[in-house]
């Protein structure tokens, strides 16, 4: 049984009589430990897909099975538990609590997990150290750069040790150098055994993933594996994007659009 099973999912918005099919019958299956990029043009349904996978939204029809459980049958309590323990989400716009320290932001999922205060602090510090922000614990979110904010968001997503890490255009608001740093972080997390699904429209970002699913108008256009399955579990040490591009035979950065 796959970690994620999406079966015939549709998501339709009624815009004053006009039906918008954001997702128009999507089937896919993702195993634990995969590193997946979801690509596609703007408006192709990437974010809608991501929100469904993150249990923030429910399909209009079809089924989403997470660990074999049909998500649409769950109530608020059970959904909250899944969002808290099983899934970590990173948003394009970071979505940190304003005027709140990095530490408090990262502690938030632990608060709702009901962890004791001291344990919360320890785990949050460890998560921030992991993303390289061990020296920015008490900085408020508005005192951090974009890259640092996204690192805080990533620390928050992984602090509860979820099995799935979702990211919707995590580098969309970052410059290319910072993007590379963030992507290196995702690579590392994948190396440590996390399942990673990220949405992007940049080939350079997608080149980090081992499988690329391309959407168009709410349907899957292409589902391509770019590295042998099962994916790399052991850490290979630092790799440059050029190395990886060469290795995978992907398009060069200059060609990326």
């Amino acid at each position, binding site marked *: 049984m796959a970690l994620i099973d999406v079966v015939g999912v549709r998501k339709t918005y009624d815009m004053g009589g006009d039906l918008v099919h954001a997702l128009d019958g999507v089937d896919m299956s993702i195993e634990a430990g995969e590193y997946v990029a979801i690509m596609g043009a703007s408006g192709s349904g990437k974010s809608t897909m991501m*929100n469904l996978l*993150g249990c*923030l*939204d429910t399909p209009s029809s079809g089924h989403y099975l997470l660990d074999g459980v049909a998500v649409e049958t769950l109530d*608020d*309590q059970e959904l*909250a*538990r899944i*969002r*808290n*323990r099983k899934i970590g*989400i990173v*948003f394009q716009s970071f*979505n940190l*609590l304003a*005027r*709140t320290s990095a530490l408090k932001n990262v502690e*938030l*999922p632990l*608060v*709702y*997990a*009901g962890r*004791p*205060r001291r344990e919360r602090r320890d785990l949050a510090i460890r998560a921030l150290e992991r993303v390289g922000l061990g020296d920015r614990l008490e900085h408020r979110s508005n005192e951090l750069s974009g890259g640092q904010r996204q690192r805080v968001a990533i620390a*928050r997503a992984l602090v*509860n040790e979820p099995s799935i890490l979702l990211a919707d255009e995590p580098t969309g608001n970052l410059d290319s150098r910072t993007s590379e740093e963030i992507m290196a972080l995702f690579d590392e997390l994948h190396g440590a055994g996390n399942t990673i699904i990220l949405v992007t429209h940049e080939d350079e970002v997608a080149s980090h993933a081992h499988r690329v699913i391309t959407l168009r108008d709410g349907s899957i256009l292409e589902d391509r594996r770019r590295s042998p399955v099962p994916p790399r579990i052991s850490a290979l040490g630092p790799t440059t994007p050029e190395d990886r591009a060469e290795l995978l035979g992907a398009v060069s950065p200059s060609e990326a659009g």
Partner: protein
Amino acid sequence: MLFFDNLLTAFESLRTNLMRSMLTTLGIIIGTAAVIAVVSIVQGLQYLISTQLQGVGATYMIVVPKINQNQGAGVVTRQVKLTWDDGQAILERVPGVDMITPLVAGPLATKYRDRQHQPDFVLGVNEDYPDVNNHTVDTGRFLSRLDVERRRKVAVVGTKVVEELRLGSDPIGKEIYVGNLPVTVVGVMEERGQFLGSDNDNFVFIPFDTALAVFGRHAGDQVQLRLQASSAEITSQVKEGVQQLLRRRHNLSEDQEDDFQIILQDELLDSVSSILGGVTAVIGAVVSVALVVGGIGIMNIMLVSVTERTREIGLRKSVGARRQDILMQFLIEAITLSLIGGVIGLGLGYGIGALVSSLLPGDWPPAHVPMWAVALAFGFCSLVGVVFGIYPASKAARLDPIDALRYE
């Protein structure tokens, strides 16, 4: 655990919007302050009355003549009499009465050399008065039994009289005039201060029999009797005994009402308390409206807060907040807001009460805030927080996570 985090979040969000929070709680502040100010003033008054009345003890009793209003037509209205003979009969025949004094009062001026002074009352009493009324002599002596029997021309005065007539540091032995009667001052009463607008030091006591001679022939027909029962337990029996004795002495038939009234100090206390209680309740009810208005202010600002923080709510849900977590967060914030208003209002109300008490003329008692008023104010503020916070909070809790996250 989460409760404490919610509390911190509430304080944090109130602090970041400090000005707005203060303005929002203004209604609550004013409401609470008004309630506490009124209660503190009235309670101070009640507290003072209680202590003053309790000074004479639960065994204290006053008997006064009463004009019977509903005597049947055609019945010749008798002259209502209450005399010192009645009083002496009570002392002799009602068990449990150890001391009793008659009291007649007249509005006479006093004079000393070229100085005139109008005391509140010139009172004719006997030697039991200091014990019955728990009011002792400071210097000199009180009137004696012999003073009364022999109609001696002596007087005991209050400190105000000493002051007004300028009797000096040693008033004993000085000769003053009460009306046209020359009397010798034999004592000065202990100072008592003002109480409810009447000056307890502005009296002149003269022997009862002397007073009758000064006030005129009929003064002795309508005296007041003041007495003490020997113990609190038998007070009501004594009252009963006095009533039966007086009914017999006044030849009242069964269908006739008493032509006198017996006032127990306890009853006095009760009626004063109930009047003041009524005043407090009415004003309290009026002022509660201010708290409701304050509550609506809180609801308004909480709705604004929920809207402003829609994305925050979405984010919290995306990392695992349940509906009840969000509900509690905003409810606690509303209650905190209301309670902060309550605390400020409490302090302000007490300040206003103290200020008003000190500005009121005379010897108005100091403001007094009883614990129940504090508890009630906080209880009411919490209730306002819950009642007016529940709608915004449940609105926040019901937000769909993805809609909330997408909110611009």
